[in-house]
């Protein structure tokens, strides 16, 4: 079966996520889909599987245009999506989950269980059909979703970052399965991944997306990881990061952390950040990067440890103490933690510094307008009167930074500074961080992109299982950092 996506376009609010993307999928082939965060890979997969409706373009199955209004429509045409975490109903058994939505509300019968067990065996999964799905580890939840797709007789399966959260052996097995499904059963498999080597290994054809546009489609055999990277970023990779100003020798320590701990996520982190210094936090998913930043800021209660900002101890469990000492947090997810999306960008910019412009409880509007205008101009954020959700991802992210810039921070804690923003905005945010450090702000920055941490920070601390596992100077190799972080 052949499926073609033709000129797909999709936007949310003011952001264009996909712009005229065309991709042809063929049975018996594994088709790789790569691109940076926010390039539009997942949205394209969701359009293919009917979870998101495109604004423009059409989907052709064997040359015939079809309407995919819901995942149910897509399944009827034999198209299924497998997500990263596995979309399952935790309270139901594996068998019930596999049969979910196929017929009424009936539970799986023993014949079904046998069929599912056979299907699992064929796919090489060791799954008990009667186990409760919610008790399964992540790897197995994903398998349940794959089985569900197979049980429905899907002819096209899209795997959205299937290996991102898997340990290496499980990831290899999954990729072999993807190849088997294509070669042995003639399915068309779409593989979305950040790991370029694995994409080149497992796929026949690779498509690169950048900022929602189609960049190139080529046979995997003709490509190297470096080619892919260049196509993803759109320029030579190494000139991307601004060189940070050297930290003066007499720069005082602004942030000092000792023995910071909370549960199993953070187990005794210690670090120092000096004025004007950018310290990067690298580490795999679950290494404690985000948790460390949140604990320093006071967003969560810490079990143990001491945080000192500008020589003053930070007590308490609300962010107000850290904020009073000049700290700001750019959180991991701007939609969930950074912005009040229904309010205007201007109100968001003003939010963290409201008490500074208060007279008898009233907002001093003129002072507020001038403070906001100044910050918005510096950042190049336009249309601050509009609701924040209408802004592009890049402008939203700059607005989160701007919220703290209005306060002239002494310490900025930054989590995932450029997640889901386009390349131009990414470079802008990088320059912004380097510029803040040059003005003497201490920056502690965590990112899941190792290149970003290495390119931007003066030095990099690697977290592993909630502890600092190593320290690298600027210019260290990504390989070494990832090895210390526990990859492979």
């Amino acid at each position, binding site marked *: 079966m052949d499926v073609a996506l033709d000129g797909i376009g999709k*936007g*949310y*609010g003011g952001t264009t996520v996909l712009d005229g993307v065309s991709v042809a999928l063929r049975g018996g082939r594994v088709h790789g889909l790569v691109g940076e965060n926010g390039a539009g890979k997942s949205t394209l997969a969701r359009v293919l599987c009917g979870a998101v409706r495109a604004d423009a373009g059409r989907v052709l199955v064997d040359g015939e245009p079809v309407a995919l209004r819901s995942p149910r429509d897509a399944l009827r045409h034999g198209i299924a999506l497998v997500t990263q975490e596995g979309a399952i109903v935790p309270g139901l058994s594996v068998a019930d989950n596999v049969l979910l939505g196929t017929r009424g509300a009936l539970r799986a019968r023993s014949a079904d269980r046998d069929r599912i067990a056979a299907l699992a065996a064929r796919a090489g999964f060791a799954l008990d059909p009667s186990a409760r799905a919610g008790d399964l580890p992540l790897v197995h939840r994903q398998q349940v979703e794959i089985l569900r797709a197979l049980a429905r007789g899907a002819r096209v399966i899209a795997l959205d970052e299937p290996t991102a959260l898997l340990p290496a052996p499980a990831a290899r097995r999954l990729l072999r399965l993807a190849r088997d499904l294509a070669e042995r059963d003639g399915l068309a498999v779409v593989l979305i991944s950040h790991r370029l080597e694995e994409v080149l290994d497992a796929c026949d054809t690779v498509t690169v997306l950048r900022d929602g546009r189609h960049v190139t489609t080529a046979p995997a055999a003709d490509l190297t990881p470096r080619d892919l990277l260049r196509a993803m970023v759109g320029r030579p990779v190494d000139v991307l990061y601004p060189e940070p100003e050297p930290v003066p020798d007499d720069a005082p320590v602004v942030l000092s952390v000792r023995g910071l701990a909370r549960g199993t996520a953070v187990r005794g982190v210690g670090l120092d950040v000096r004025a004007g210094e950018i310290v990067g936090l690298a580490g795999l998913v679950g290494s404690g990067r985000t948790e460390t930043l949140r604990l320093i*800021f006071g*967003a969560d209660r810490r079990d143990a440890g001491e945080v000192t900002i500008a020589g003053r101890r930070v007590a308490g469990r*609300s*962010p*107000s103490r850290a*904020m009073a000492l000049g700290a700001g*947090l750019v*959180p991991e997810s701007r*939609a*969930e*933690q*950074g*912005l*009040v*999306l*229904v*309010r205007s960008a201007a*109100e968001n910019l*003003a*939010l*963290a510094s*409201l*008490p500074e*412009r*208060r007279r008898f*409880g*009233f*907002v001093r509007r003129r002072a507020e307008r001038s403070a906001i205008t100044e910050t918005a101009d510096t950042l190049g954020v336009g249309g601050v009167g509009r*609701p924040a*959700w209408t802004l592009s991802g890049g402008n939203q992210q700059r607005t989160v930074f701007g*919220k703290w810039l209005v306060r002239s921070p002494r310490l900025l804690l930054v989590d995932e500074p450029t997640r889901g923003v386009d390349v131009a905005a990414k470079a802008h945010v990088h320059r912004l961080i380097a510029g803040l450090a040059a003005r003497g702000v201490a920056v502690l920055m965590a990112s899941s992109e190792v290149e970003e941490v290495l390119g931007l920070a003066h030095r990099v601390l690697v977290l592993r299982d909630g502890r600092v596992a190593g320290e690298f100077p600027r210019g260290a190799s990504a390989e070494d950092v990832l090895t210390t972080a526990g990859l492979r």
Partner: protein
Amino acid sequence: MRYTAVRDHGIVVALAGLAVALSLSTSTFLTTGNLVNVLDQAVVVGLLACGMTLCIVCGVFDLSVSAVLAVSAVVAVLVTRSAGVPAGYAAGVATGTLMGTATGFVVALSRVHSFIATLALSIVYRGLAVVITGGAIVYPRAAQLDPFQSLSYPTVLGRVTVPTLVLAGVAAVCWLLLAATTLGRAVFAVGGNAEAARLSGVRIAPVRIAVFAVSGACAGTAGLVLASRAGSAQAGLGSLLELTAIAAVVIGGTSILGGEGAVWRSLVGVLVLTLISNGFNLLGWDPTYKQVIEGLLILAAVTLDRLLRRSAGAP
């Protein structure tokens, strides 16, 4: 933007259309007597809706307002009996404010969803009113009745009643509070995204407690208006008015999801509901259909809001 235009002004157009239709189809609608009457009828729900607006914008519901109203009215009458009318009035508003604050503490500290917490508290408060009155109707002393009822009298301003002016005053205060103060900004932020507000240094619990306190004060005031109109108070006073208040807020276009809305919208919503009821009276229609129309109107308002949001691609 089309989205904002329809959302911002659709309800005003609806109110104007309703007024024009009633002026054309009846000879009595545009008389001073009727208009004064319409405003007077809008007062109690209007007062509750002012407080409810702040709550809903802040992302919480206050289902306890009508029970708070009843307790406040009963306390106002009882204090009037022992300490005079001014003390009784003051006690009524103070009781509402205190009970609202208590509700706020319970919601903020228990972290139970406000819908459930205030539902439970409304039963407690209603029970409290029964305990205080022993289930009987309470009256001021005979000599106090006239001054006690003076709150419900017409004024020299074109015979507009005192309660109408009280509503205007309360609405102005609530509007200023929400639109011009730092507390108002915090209310919008907490309702729009509590986690983002917290990580921006807004302390959420005090903000929530404050909106419940305002809602309680509004309910207490509404209780005074009802008691002075009737010249008495009882435990069952104002039952289920909280639902009418929520309906008015929603019809006005304040987002049920929190973070968006305005006090003037709720007043427009209250007027729409009052005009519908007034229209049924003036046209001599069977009032049993009134509820059907009101219910459909609420549904239409919320559906329209949702459709507009979706077409604009809002989160």
